[in-house]
């Protein structure tokens, strides 16, 4: 292809995809009294937006909630998922095949379709506005994909390895613990990224189960903030910017792993 044309197209694509973020930055740094076009970058930095957003949207507690929920849920998913995949991948008895199919079938069930009874259940067990209920639910709905990825990966590890370890005196459990687990690192990275991004950004569970400002995560806190200060879009923009910052920073440094992880998870 013509080199110049390729360059023009490249620049065009980049500009097109940066526009929304460019606009967001402009609004976030503009004074609310500045009515100039959103396309224009302000010549000053109006940081009061960030202070207002941080205080009024309770972003400090949102950051804490996000960290607690995401880290606990991701660690648990990795442990429970990897554990579950070992018997499902290595001992495909008829019963275990049924179990595996049941797990995988859950991937199609969108969480929203069972919202009514799920909400009722959480109310009944006293889980509204608690971290543990949301964490358990996030774990549950991330499990099918996690098990799918781990069993898929385990199937690529030759069984001879297990047999060799068994001969050397391992039992079925220690084979998993000392031989297979260390080999699962690459797929664990995929799981952490995939599940981590999903849970960090989740809105559909958090909005139902976290109703008090103190326990809300970024998306929920922002949606409450937005409905309260709909006219102060500079504040909302600042809040949006703060809450996407952690993910964007991590993404910039680890983008190779992100792109690989997210695609591996989907493409398989």
């Amino acid at each position, binding site marked *: 292809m013509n080199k110049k044309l390729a360059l023009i197209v*490249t620049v065009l694509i980049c500009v097109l995809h940066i526009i929304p973020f460019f606009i967001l930055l402009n609004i976030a740094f503009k004074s609310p009294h500045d009515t100039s076009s959103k396309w224009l970058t302000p010549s000053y930095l109006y940081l009061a937006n960030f202070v207002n957003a941080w205080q009024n949207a309770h972003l400090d507690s949102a950051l804490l909630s996000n960290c607690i929920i995401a880290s606990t849920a991701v660690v648990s998913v990795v442990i429970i998922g990897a554990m579950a995949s070992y018997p499902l991948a290595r001992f495909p008895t008829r019963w275990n095949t049924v179990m595996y199919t049941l797990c995988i079938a859950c991937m199609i069930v969108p969480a*929203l379709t069972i919202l009514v009874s799920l909400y009722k259940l959480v109310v009944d067990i006293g889980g509204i506005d608690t971290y543990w209920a949301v964490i358990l639910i996030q774990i549950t709905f991330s499990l099918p994909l996690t098990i799918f990825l781990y069993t898929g990966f385990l199937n690529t590890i030759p069984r001879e390895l297990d047999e060799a370890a068994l001969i050397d*005196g391992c039992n079925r459990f220690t084979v998993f613990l000392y031989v297979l687990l260390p080999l699962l690192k690459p797929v664990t990275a995929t799981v952490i990224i995939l599940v981590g991004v999903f849970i960090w950004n989740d809105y559909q569970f958090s909005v139902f189960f976290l109703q008090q400002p103190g326990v809300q995560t970024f*998306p929920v806190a922002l949606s409450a903030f937005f409905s309260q200060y709909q006219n102060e879009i500079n504040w909302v923009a600042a809040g949006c910017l703060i809450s*996407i910052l952690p993910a964007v920073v991590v993404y910039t440094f680890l983008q190779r792993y992100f792109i690989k992880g997210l*695609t591996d998870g989907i493409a398989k």
Partner: protein
Amino acid sequence: MHQQVRLQSAQPEELVTKKASEMRRKPRRSSPWLVNLMYLPALILLAVFIFYPFIQGVRYSFTNWDGYSEQFRWVGLLQYQRFLSDPDMLRTIVNTFIYGCGSTFLQNILGLAYALFLDQKIRGKGFVRTIVYLPIIISPLIMGYISYFFFQYDGGAANDVLHVLGRAPVDWLGNGPTAVWIITFVNTYQYMGVAMIIYLAGLQAIPREFQDAAAIDGASAVARFRFITLPLLMPAITVSVVYNVIGGLKLFDVIVAMTNGGPGYASQSLSTMMYNLYFAREDAGYAATLGNIMFLIITVVGIALLIALRRKEVRL
């Protein structure tokens, strides 16, 4: 009986090594039954938070439950009949399919175009990939707010452009059909990177020799794409299309952020409608019915597409 099953399903080499290992050292080995305990935590979680609510959801859809009181009446299929005769629902179903199929179509066409472009030797390829992929790590809700700033009526970025061009401002989100397409477009913008990466990986897996051989035989670029690239890309297309359709049909966050289903019910999807019925109108039985219908639609559409597309895949 159980042992019989084990014997039948055991791999031949497993039987052989079992014997060999027992002869050599007789290691203490726990039975596979005990190992199965390892998926117990996962099974319990799935049972409590997915299977049980799912069954309960089916039960609630046959009642007139309001969502909080202890009492409700069994109404049989009344809620399903209500769904079929509800004038708001036609709009909702059509919208759900626009969100689902519209964004799938756009994402895949654009993703494929981007992938074909990036598959060449181009400077700044990695940068383009990073930029196009960036929105995926952002919460769809926040993506919705960012787009709201763009399309809002008063001082929105889109209307600023129209102003410079000397046109009257457009109320993008205040008009139902336009809002639906804008939401579809935002969803496309956010997730087209997934399709792009899947196609990019698919394109890179096609051996160059095929293209070269066809070129020597005189096939035009269009013919090469149509008869070589496209058929070999079918597995990637299947994955990408099915993934996008499921994602689009259950779209929720972006709609909440941009229009909240409005104006009126003009941009509601099944998911936002269900939320609305349950929490705002305390119509839990009907909301559960909607949930079941949504489940049915997504499963049927997803599986039908999977089967239809798989049939077209070719093997090397």
